[in-house]
């Protein structure tokens, strides 16, 4: 797609604007705040129905319908209209979009199918590069550069998806850990009820059968919640007794044990050892590293599968060899392994003790509910909650946590006033319930175990299910990451070479050995560049900001070329030039002119030098360059058509508005001859304020032209190339005539600008002046490619005067 014509009405800071790029490169030059970016927004809106700048971070209060139209107009008045050329259609087509109905693109029904791919691609935004993106990229630090490169390359949706999948995996992992924790607590409750240290089905079954025997039941062989009371006669006995004092006493005794001096001393000992080990590790970086390596190697060993690839770097291995390699590595990390295993043992021991305490407390809390001892219940629930927080700290390997100082942990296992609470519970239970019979206790034991086993079975099931979900979440994330790396690395490999080619083109012999590394890595993109053959570093490590600017531009151009090829030929560069110096800007001009044939660049800039260079280097034809200035709320920017001024001067002359025509002629000529002088390296009398008048520029340009023509003739003579000499003489005669005429006519320009009784120019007076200037302009420009004649300089020597296409070539080298 190319842009032929664009009309903007009452949109952002623009009232009415009409431009005609005609599918060619187009430049809008103007100071900050003159409305340039509003034109970019208009194209953006026309193609996508949105304004990218009004979306994203910091735009919460910005509304398209409210803030899109010109501030004095409403959405229905804001309209963007364009004539475009689409691939596959001979005729150009008109498209329109109004802010009143932003989602609807108005165009002929017959072209909707053809334009749809263009709109779809435009919605990805890969055809627009903004100053903000380049700036973010250049100023990014090492931690955010990867993200900024992704923004620059317009692939942030991949990173967003990765983040979502990480969130999914973590959420499922938390579910699994929660289920595991619940399982541990219910296991500990069962262990506590039965009086065993670790969950052991044989011991539990034995406990069941002892109680069944008291109730004349036959032994069962399998531990299942629904068979514990199978075929027992006392089924009608127990339900009247809500609290079994005997069992409650057992629980209270267990709690007494937990808070006993001996147990606290034991816990204290574990905590001391655990803290000492952690301190030892954190103060020894080698040991800390060794532990990380050990954890990773053990994890890797566990992940080895049949595909013979290293689970970390995907390198292909013989599985047996890799296994041996990892096992050897683990053997070498013996010291670290001893420390790690010790930490694991101590933590597990502590976790077990906490789970026991929680399990016992859960049983006692049930009694407080029945006894309606609200205060006691609350105290015990707070205690359980504190224990659970400490438990999660240990399970996540975050201990020692500043929240759990040594003395706090001690208090955690023996809260103040606990004895009073426990005594209250027991005495209240004794007041309300009788001493149970042996059968009753056996029955209550089975009832309690039945309930806990049901919970245990459910927890096992939850744990299994949540592990499966977590596993799927992890597989989904890892598969996505593998695919992301593979796809992006292929893409990066394709664009990297082009990026290097473009960058070298700009920096030439400065960076002859330049190379780059662009790979998808983890959460972001690893982008490193060579620095004069001294190795690869981050772009901001050794390169200047100017070099980084050009890297950003080249990276974007290489990707845009790859991704929008064949659909959108329009590439918008919105004020992207910043720290690049003049010679390198010239090379960027060459790049845009010569490396992207068939593309249409729509460029905005506030930089006058860059604007001039774009024209003098042939990227922008004079007719496709406009200047915005003097922006006002009421009228938007003033529009100065700097390049092809002849049509608008002609319009002024037709209206007999001589001052207007003269003003445009003077302003346009000043601009034009600034570029001529820059291209020919013409000497102009220096002015500190940089405000050169037409006379200063005109003299410099004509003088340099004559001087170089004279050199060219001399060179032709030295080569005895008389044919060339003859041709140059003809050029000289023609230019001489024009120069003489211009010296006669030029005085008229300034007085004609202002209406004055004494100098009242008529159309007949001023028309020949315009014609002579027009003829003068044509001398400094190639009539084929439209580029300015410029000096070709090699080192200290001036070699030729040329245009870009070679149609104009004057050799300046003598034989």
């Amino acid at each position, binding site marked *: 797609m190319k842009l032929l014509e664009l009309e903007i009405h009452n949109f952002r800071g623009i009232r009415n604007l009409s431009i005609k790029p005609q599918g060619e490169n187009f430049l809008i030059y103007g100071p900050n705040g003159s409305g340039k970016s509003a034109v970019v927004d208009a194209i953006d809106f026309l193609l996508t129905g949105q304004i990218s700048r009004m979306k994203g971070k910091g735009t919460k209060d910005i509304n398209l319908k409210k803030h899109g139209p010109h501030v004095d107009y409403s959405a229905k008045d804001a309209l963007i209209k364009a004539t475009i050329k689409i*691939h*596959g259609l001979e005729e150009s087509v008109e498209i329109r979009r109004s802010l009143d109905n932003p989602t609807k693109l108005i165009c002929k029904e017959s072209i909707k*199918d*053809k334009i749809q*791919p263009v709109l*779809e*691609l435009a919605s*990805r935004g890969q055809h627009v590069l903004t100053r903000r993106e380049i700036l973010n990229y250049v100023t990014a630090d090492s931690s955010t550069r990867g993200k900024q490169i992704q923004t620059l390359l317009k*692939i942030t*949706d*991949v990173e*967003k*998806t990765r983040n*979502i*999948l990480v*969130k*999914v995996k973590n*959420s*499922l992992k938390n*579910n699994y850990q929660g289920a595991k924790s619940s399982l541990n607590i219910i296991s500990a409750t069962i262990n506590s009820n039965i009086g065993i240290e670790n969950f052991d089905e044989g011991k539990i079954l034995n406990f069941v059968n002892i109680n069944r025997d008291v109730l004349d039941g036959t032994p069962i062989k399998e531990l299942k919640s629904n068979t514990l009371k199978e075929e027992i006669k006392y089924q009608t006995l127990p339900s009247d007794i809500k609290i079994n004092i005997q069992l409650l006493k057992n629980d209270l005794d267990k709690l007494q044990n937990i808070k006993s001096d001996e147990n606290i001393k034991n816990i204290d000992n574990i905590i001391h050892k655990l803290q000492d080990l952690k301190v030892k590790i954190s103060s020894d970086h080698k040991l800390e590293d060794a532990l990380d390596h050990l954890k990773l190697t053990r994890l890797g060993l566990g992940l080895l599968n049949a595909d013979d690839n290293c689970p970390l770097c995907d390198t292909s291995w013989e599985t047996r060899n890799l296994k041996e390699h990892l096992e050897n590595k683990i053997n070498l990390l013996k010291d670290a392994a001893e420390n790690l295993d010790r930490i694991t043992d101590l933590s597990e021991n502590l976790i077990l003790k906490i789970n026991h305490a929680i399990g016992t407390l859960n049983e006692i809390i049930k009694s407080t509910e029945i006894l309606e001892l609200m205060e006691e219940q609350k105290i015990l629930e707070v205690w359980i909650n504190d224990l659970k927080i400490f438990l999660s700290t240990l399970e996540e390997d975050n201990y020692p946590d500043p929240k759990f100082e040594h003395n706090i942990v001690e208090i955690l296992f023996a809260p103040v006033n606990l004895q009073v609470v426990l005594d209250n519970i027991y005495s209240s239970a004794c007041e309300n319930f009788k001493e149970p019979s042996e059968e009753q206790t056996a029955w209550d034991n089975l009832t309690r175990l039945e309930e806990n086993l049901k919970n245990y079975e459910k927890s096992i099931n939850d744990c299994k*299910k*949540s592990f*499966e*979900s977590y*596993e*799927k*979440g992890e*597989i*989904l994330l890892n*598969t*996505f990451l*593998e*695919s*992301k790396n*593979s*796809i*992006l690395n292929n*893409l990066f490999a394709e664009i990297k070479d082009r990026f290097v080619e473009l960058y070298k083109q700009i920096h030439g012999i400065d960076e002859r050995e330049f190379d780059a590394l662009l790979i998808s890595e983890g959460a972001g993109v690893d982008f490193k560049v060579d620095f004069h053959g001294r190795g690869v570093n981050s772009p901001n490590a050794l390169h200047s900001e100017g070099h980084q600017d050009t890297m950003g531009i080249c990276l974007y151009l290489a990707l845009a070329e*790859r*991704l929008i*090829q*064949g*659909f959108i030929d329009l590439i918008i560069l919105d004020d992207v030039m910043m720290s690049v110096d003049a010679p390198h800007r010239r090379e960027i001009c060459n790049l845009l002119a010569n490396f992207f044939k068939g593309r249409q660049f729509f460029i905005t800039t506030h930089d006058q030098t860059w604007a001039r260079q774009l024209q003098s280097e042939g990227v922008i034809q004079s007719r496709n360059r406009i200047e915005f200035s003097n922006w006002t709320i009421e009228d938007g920017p003033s529009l100065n058509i700097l390049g092809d001024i002849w049509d608008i001067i002609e319009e002024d002359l037709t209206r007999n508005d001589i001052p207007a025509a003269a003003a445009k002629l003077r302003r346009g000529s000043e601009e034009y001859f600034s570029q001529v002088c820059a291209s020919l390296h013409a000497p102009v009398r220096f002015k500190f304020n940089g405000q050169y008048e037409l006379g200063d520029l005109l003299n410099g340009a004509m003088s340099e032209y004559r001087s170089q023509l004279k050199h060219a003739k001399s060179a032709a003579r030295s080569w005895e190339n008389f044919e060339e000499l003859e041709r140059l003489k003809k050029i000289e005669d023609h230019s001489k005539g024009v120069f003489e005429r211009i010296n006669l006519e030029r005085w008229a320009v300034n007085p004609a600008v202002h209406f004055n009784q004494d100098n009242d120019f008529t159309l007949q007076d001023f028309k020949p002046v315009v014609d002579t200037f027009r003829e003068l302009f044509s001398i400094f420009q190639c009539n084929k490619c439209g580029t300015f004649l410029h000096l070709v300089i090699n080192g200290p020597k001036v070699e030729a005067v040329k245009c870009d296409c070679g149609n104009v070539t004057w050799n300046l080298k003598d034989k």
Partner: protein
Amino acid sequence: MIILNIMGVYIIGESLKVPKTVLEDVWLNTLSKLRDNPNFNSELVETIESMTKVDLINSDDIIDLLKS
């Protein structure tokens, strides 16, 4: 007539097909690998695929799906 241009964009007759986004390519590759993974049955992969068709995926939807 089918022409394959150098950038891998197919032009069939006069109708142009928009190249996939990088994200679409990544999902295509991901789903293809998941189809070969015994932990993911075809129904699950299809549901994930349908979720990827509409804008960015939603974490809650994916969590619910993987839990079910």
